């Protein structure tokens, strides 16, 4: 019975196809995920992947993976990237460009901003259903918290807390502003 099961199992998927995107923002880019729900064989090898495309100056929300490490290979352009550990130390803060690989350990927080030419990457995650939490944006941890918790936690007014909570209405990929921070500054 393995002819019609194991032997014929689907083992490939085109993640580059723009219409395949799971998250898309015409002003920021797209993000496509491949996990064991979309490609069941990944359940056996306990890995998953995602393809990211950021347009010029666009930002990928600060985020962390709950259950996986990530190995990211940059396929085009360049990105400014910051990665932070549990001590609040920036363990990486710099430019990454085509051909380079960077590893983001589980739970470490990371943010990316594309450079002038945009930025593209493929990431491999060490869990077949890698899950991400964002720090800003419409589905972020901040949106989940009561305004009063934010105001007290950061010693700010309720109005400031509301701005922190609601200013970014996008989900994962944010359009960049004209006053993008100076690239290469550490």
């Amino acid at each position, binding site marked *: 019975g393995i002819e019609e099961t194991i032997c014929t199992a689907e083992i490939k998927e085109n993640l580059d196809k723009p219409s395949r995107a799971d998250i898309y923002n015409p002003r920021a880019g797209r993000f496509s995920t491949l996990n064991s729900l979309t490609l069941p064989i990944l359940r056996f090898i306990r890995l998953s992947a995602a393809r990211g495309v950021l347009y010029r100056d666009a930002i990928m929300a600060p985020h962390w993976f709950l259950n996986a490490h990530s190995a990211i290979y940059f396929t085009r352009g360049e990105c400014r990237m910051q990665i932070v550990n549990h001590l609040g130390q920036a363990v990486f803060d710099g430019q990454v460009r085509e051909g380079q690989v960077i590893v983001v350990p589980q739970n470490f927080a990371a943010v990316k901003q594309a450079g002038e030419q945009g930025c593209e990457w493929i990431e491999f995650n060490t869990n077949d259903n890698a899950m991400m939490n964002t720090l800003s944006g419409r589905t972020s941890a901040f949106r989940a918290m009561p305004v009063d918790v934010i105001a007290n936690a950061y010693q700010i007014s309720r109005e400031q807390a509301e701005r922190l909570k609601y200013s970014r209405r996008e989900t994962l990929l944010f359009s960049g*502003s004209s006053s993008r921070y100076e690239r290469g500054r550490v």
Partner: protein
Amino acid sequence: GSWQQGECHLSRINAREPTFRLEAEGGVTEFWDHTNDEFQCAGVSIHRHRINPRGLVLPAYHNAPVLVYVVRGRGTLGYLISGCPETFESSQESQQEYYEERGEEGRSHIFRDKHQKVREIRQGYVFAIPAGAAHWTYNNGEEELVTVAVQDVANYANQLDRTPRSFYLAGNPLRGQQQQEGRPREQRGLPEFGNVFRGFKVRPLSEAFRVDEETARLLRGENDTRGHIIRAEQGIQFVSPTLREEYGRREGQYGRGEGPYYTRDN
């Protein structure tokens, strides 16, 4: 670091007291030394929060699942799941009616908010926090809220090493540690933690949140001296069924309609 799964050659087991206290404005946390042989063997780290009334344990997530037991007191737990909707939301009308009934018509600010579900916890409750899930705890009771927690660093969900780590999303939790003199943190068997925003530059933070740089700087908590448990002087308001139920009870057991949540027929 040298411990491997199955390395539990214990010749003696001791009953242990916490070995380290981390004091903060709104309470104190006591840690058991996770480098003791039996804790290393079991792959667990244990700590106890003592949260004063109006104390808020700042939002944080951990590198391993946590199981918590409420020893004493009561409070509220906020559990943040990215992508889930904000299902606890206030409607302006019901809030106004509520305050009017309380004779607070002149109230200048009507409390409105929406956020994810919050859960009441009290003595005897056990609650579970998956690895990497952010959460906060607030003591809205009259007495100290005491919780004891085990962090299962040997759990399959933790792909880092067996060091217990806490990633805070606010404040300056290291401040309390810096007051300790002498031996390095590792020798004391303390978990490691800090505010993750501290590692981000102000400019990208202000862009990611689309706020001014001053507000973004506050996320980093650099000048915050309150520690990992803060005191909310004015208390913390959030939308919770308790408020709604009180409002309903004033109108009879089930409110105006047929049930507690039915105020109109279809």
